[in-house]
């Protein structure tokens, strides 16, 4: 064992980036281990909200007599409108749950982050690993919504993916964006206030994120239509709309991609700054 350990050391010295890659992989495997141990809670966490949402708004309400405005007015197509929206919400919530919540406690009393910060990897890569791992969870969460939307609503909602490449790109970008947002929250908010952050940031950006309505539908409320352009969730919802339900009115996809990249970069940078401030004095 001794000799093989020394081989590891010598090899690593020769291939600096090799060890970085292995360290990154090690962190990813650790997160994967923790996730698989909590697979059922994970699935419940990401699945419950879209499940109930679809059940109430696309199964119960349309069957209720007496014309609930939302049910009758929006009719069966409401399911089609909210499918991408619910995917966006799933992405964002799991991004925050996978990065912000663990980080804020690991930075807190337990200082568990220390061992990972001490691995032979640049600090930015430790933060990047967190974001990438959360992106993986976000993608799973988003894909889970598609079968739900098919089976639950009174009128099945079918995903109509014409451009798989666009879907993959939007999913990955949106998930990285959500992870970056999680990094910002996790590294700047103290654990006691994380509940407050949900109420004053996460919930408002969800409700104003073109999740339950399309951006084009805001036409008559011009100030709001412009106002929400500063909300990154809008581009996640609209991007998924463009990819999953292209028949519904949506923003032009090149604009969406540019905005997603911009917000990911901006939030990633901010989050990394917060992360470095927490681990390096």
């Amino acid at each position, binding site marked *: 064992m001794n000799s093989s*350990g020394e081989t590891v050391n010598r090899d690593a010295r020769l291939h600096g980036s*090799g060890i970085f890659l292995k360290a990154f992989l*090690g962190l990813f495997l650790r997160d994967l281990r923790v996730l698989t141990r909590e697979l059922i809670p994970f699935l419940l966490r990401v699945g419950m909200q879209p499940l109930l949402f679809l059940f109430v708004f696309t199964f119960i309400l349309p069957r209720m007599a007496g014309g609930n405005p939302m049910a009758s007015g929006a009719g069966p197509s409401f399911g089609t409108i909210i499918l991408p929206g619910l995917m966006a919400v799933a992405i964002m919530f799991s991004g925050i749950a996978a990065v912000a919540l663990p980080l804020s406690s690991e930075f807190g009393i337990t200082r568990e982050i220390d061992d990972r910060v*001490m691995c032979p990897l*640049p600090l930015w890569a430790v933060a990047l690993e967190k974001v990438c791992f959360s992106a993986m969870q976000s993608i799973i969460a988003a894909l889970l919504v598609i079968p739900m939307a098919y089976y639950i609503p009174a009128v099945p909602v079918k995903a109509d993916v014409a451009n798989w490449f666009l879907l993959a790109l939007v999913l990955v970008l949106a998930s990285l964006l959500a992870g970056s947002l999680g990094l910002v929250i996790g590294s700047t908010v103290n654990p006691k206030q994380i509940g407050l952050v949900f109420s004053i940031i996460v919930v408002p950006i969800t409700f104003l994120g073109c999740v339950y309505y399309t951006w084009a539908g805001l036409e008559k409320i011009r100030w709001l239509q412009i106002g929400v352009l500063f909300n990154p969730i809008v581009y996640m919802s609209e991007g998924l709309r463009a990819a999953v339900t292209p028949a519904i009115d949506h923003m032009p996809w090149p604009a969406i991609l540019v905005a997603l990249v911009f917000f990911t970069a901006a939030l990633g940078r901010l989050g990394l700054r917060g992360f470095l401030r927490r681990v*390096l004095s």
Partner: protein
Amino acid sequence: MNLLIVEIESLTKVYESKLRVVAVDGIDLELKQGEIFGLLGPNGAGKTTTISIATTRTLPTSGTVRINGIDVVKHPAHARRHIGVVPQFNTLDRSLTVYENLYYHCRYFGFSHGQAKSRSMELLSQFLLTERKEVYPAQLSGGLAQRVQIARAIAHRPAVLFLDEPSAGLDPQSRMAMWTAVEGLRKEGITVLLTTHYMEEADSLSDRLAIIDYGRVLALGSPEKLKSTFGAQTIFDLTLKSHEGLEPVIATLKAREDVTNAEATADGLRVIAATSEGLLPDLVQMAARFGLRDLKITEPSLETVFIQLTGRDLRE
């Protein structure tokens, strides 16, 4: 082999805030391969800051630290491969079992699955933790958690292990067990830098030690050398009811051949002497006039060296 594993040169760290704090004020240290080196000083002396800088967690204001020849500021990620750290607090991964804490630590350092597995098993048996491999850190006592932390810190075979106040918060039994573990590392040839404010710990564990205070190295050498160089002396601390008229007494005491120094303290009088022979009865007699309340005699030890160097108790 006289390889230098840790080289600290003119290290300073100044915290600029409302209050300007000079935590480290020009420290120079060199650790040779395989030695156990103690940094001894009171709380706030700059020990932890020095370790934080050396372990890439704090950026120095000036000066350099090299670990195994690698500059920790210029190449922190590479330097970390040669560094093992046991921090003051339990930072074990709460989501992983004891075995997994070791296993994934090895993976972070580039071990393959097989290597990580066998190294973890080896460490579990070395640190008598095999029975507890499936236990989560939250279920461990302070002493056991500390042992897992030491095992984890040396898992990737670092060149140097930093132990920051390793016995803080441990019961005496766990402290002894921890000392045994550190002694065991000596046999493996690992260089160890430990900070402590426990004299006995520094005295019994370190090959060499540096006494630091206010961010500066006051003395450096083996415990024996420090005790002989700074003429480890006996210290008499007298608690007196009345402090009036002490001056002439102090002058008389200073004039004695066996007394090195005598001074007034907040409680009464402190006398530093080469020997207690003959002095003790005189002191008691003299102090009776001032209402002697208590007399504390500190036998020659690192503690007396420390008091002589800094003028204050380590635990003050």
